[in-house]
């Protein structure tokens, strides 16, 4: 029984060009996001032809404002989805945080904006902690848990509203400083949008270049392998939920700042939009791949569809249908790209031998 160790005649095959593989991988990442970007540019182009005023200053600002909230939510959701989880409760968390912030500001008009923002984020983080603890400690599927908290947090929100006797918080109830924050611009760009961009950059860099970020990918890619390689799976997932909750809380504050009128239904039904934005942006629902930039682009694309379809003269009734068709087109495109890459990897593998 020595045959397996005979004839070590084969010399190690020539090193396969590392450049090419790296380039390929790089290209895939770029292409994924480029595809969405291209769709976005195409949509804007067509809309511009139909309505040249589409890119007027006011309209672009409005677009940014509308997108800001979804972008923040999508960035947070990306972290969670990458770990092979999902957080369906973000719409409810946004509602609760917006209402809490609004109540705080209405009762204490002297509260500085920063404190209001932190308070909103704290409310969100608390909700995220609840989700995260249940998911990570009890080891139960996040879809179920967050479906539960979707109902429960919304119920809490409206219960608060109906017992506090303040069903709606109007612009008049909010202090001027906060309202200014909602309308403020830097170099013509709405501050709310800048906040969203900052969030995306921070989350994006963390996911790409930090050990703890990479570990999130590991967890989503193969949970068992993550456990065996000593990654603190529970803690990482918990933190992802807390951060996502805090970002949903931040989105609640942005919501309050932007609309300045809120009741306890704020953000209802938003969860599917957020998941859709992430998925359109190339974040795989099965975990392990995706980027915050992609998700942000997805959010931007969905928002742009919302505002551009009416300008293309499309009957408003068509809007939902178009959004749905676009989501499907986006994931189909993404799939065909990844398939092509996988096929190429396979072919190379054979040749390399």
């Amino acid at each position, binding site marked *: 029984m020595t045959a397996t160790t005979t004839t070590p005649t084969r010399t190690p095959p020539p090193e396969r060009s590392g450049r090419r593989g790296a380039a390929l991988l790089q290209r895939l990442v770029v292409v994924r996001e480029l595809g969405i970007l291209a769709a976005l540019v195409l949509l804007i182009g067509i809309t511009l032809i139909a309505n040249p005023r589409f890119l007027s200053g006011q309209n672009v600002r409005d677009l940014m404002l509308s997108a800001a909230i979804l972008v923040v939510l999508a960035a947070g959701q990306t972290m969670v989805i990458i770990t092979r989880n999902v957080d369906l409760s973000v719409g409810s968390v946004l509602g609760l945080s917006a209402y809490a912030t609004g109540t705080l500001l209405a009762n204490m008009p002297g509260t500085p904006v920063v404190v209001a923002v932190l308070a909103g984020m704290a409310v969100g983080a608390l909700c995220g902690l609840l989700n995260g603890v249940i998911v990570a400690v009890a080891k*139960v599927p996040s879809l179920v*848990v967050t479906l539960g908290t979707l109902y429960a947090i*919304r*119920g809490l929100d409206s219960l608060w509203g109906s017992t506090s006797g303040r069903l709606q918080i109007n612009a008049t109830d909010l202090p001027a400083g906060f309202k200014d924050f909602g309308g403020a611009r830097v170099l013509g760009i709405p501050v709310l949008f800048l906040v969203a961009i900052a969030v995306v950059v921070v989350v994006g860099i963390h996911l790409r270049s930090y050990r703890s970020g990479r570990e999130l990918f590991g967890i989503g890619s193969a949970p068992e392998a993550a456990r065996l390689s000593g990654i603190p799976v529970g803690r990482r997932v918990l933190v992802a939920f807390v951060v996502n909750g805090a970002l949903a809380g931040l989105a609640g504050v942005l919501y309050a700042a932007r609309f300045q009128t809120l009741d306890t239904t704020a953000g209802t039904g938003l969860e599917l939009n957020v998941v859709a934005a992430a998925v359109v942006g190339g974040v795989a629902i099965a975990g392990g791949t995706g980027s915050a930039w992609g998700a942000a682009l997805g959010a931007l694309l969905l928002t742009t569809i919302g505002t551009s379809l009416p300008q293309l003269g499309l*009957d408003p009734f068509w809007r939902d249908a178009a*959004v749905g068709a676009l989501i499907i087109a986006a*994931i189909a495109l993404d799939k065909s790209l990844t398939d092509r890459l996988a096929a190429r990897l396979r072919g190379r593998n054979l040749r390399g031998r």
Partner: protein
Amino acid sequence: MAVDTSAGPAAPARPSRAPRTLPSGSVITTFLVVFLVVAGFAVDGFASSRNAGFLLLDVAVVALIALPLTLIVVTGEIDLSVASTVGLSSSVMGWLWFQGLPLELIVPLVLVLGAVLGAVNGLLVTRLGLPSLAVTIGTLALYRGLAFVVLGDQAVADFPRSWTTWAISSIGGTGIPNVVLPLLVLVAVTAVVLHATPIGRSLYAMGNSEDAARFSGIDVGRTKLWLFVAAGVVSALGGVYWTLRYGSARADNATGVELQVIAAILLGGVSIFGGSGGLLGVMAGALLLASVRNALQLVNVPSDVLNIVTGVLLIVAVVAPQVTGWARGRLASRPPG
């Protein structure tokens, strides 16, 4: 084959007859029964036949759609577009009725439409290999959008009394709605398919490991495709029933019902990752959700609290087995004596 087992170290495995594990869903079913009994005594008006009728009417569509969706979830997929299919079927039904077609023709046409809608989902999932959660988030928006395209802001409401009354009236004077009988038949058929046929076995296999199922000769793609088609047809049937029950065909009918159906399925102990769970639990889950709401409404609990209760119930349903399993594990691993 002649194998010398006398000296073999391998103790031949015992057949598993002795300690049978409880059938899945028995916990939730027990819970349901306890709840019904308690509520029957504690809640005024809960245990009347009229209330039972209301309750069953409320749960009918959710239970109906839960049937095919349970099979889909067992295979590890999901269909979020079911409620939108209900809406689109309802719209199309209204539109066709408005065009003067007879209901006897409309109903089969709508069912065919449901099959087509389901097939679209199924083909996208099985042929293109797209994740069903993402696909059906897309068709959730698409089908609902098409429902509005068909009927816009109109409502078609002049359906014949004979049909609409059938949908809400009960068998004889029993208080049990007419719709319960066909529903029970469908439940029985689905239960047999899932639990006592080779098809059911293959559903569990592919839910746990698609690869292993394919390597065992199971045509995973085709099976899933047919399940999505079935979900489409049944949802369309739900659309027809919904339209008749409320006597109103509208594009926004059954908005959000998908979450109720999924809540029932998850409450019933079906794993969202596929491969485990049973129909008994799902039906119990659907009934439990509806009766808790009903009982709490009867004692004037506000709807905010109802939502909280629903959410907590869902979480408890998944966490509880985890906790008891953990506790049992602690007991078992304690050194004997």
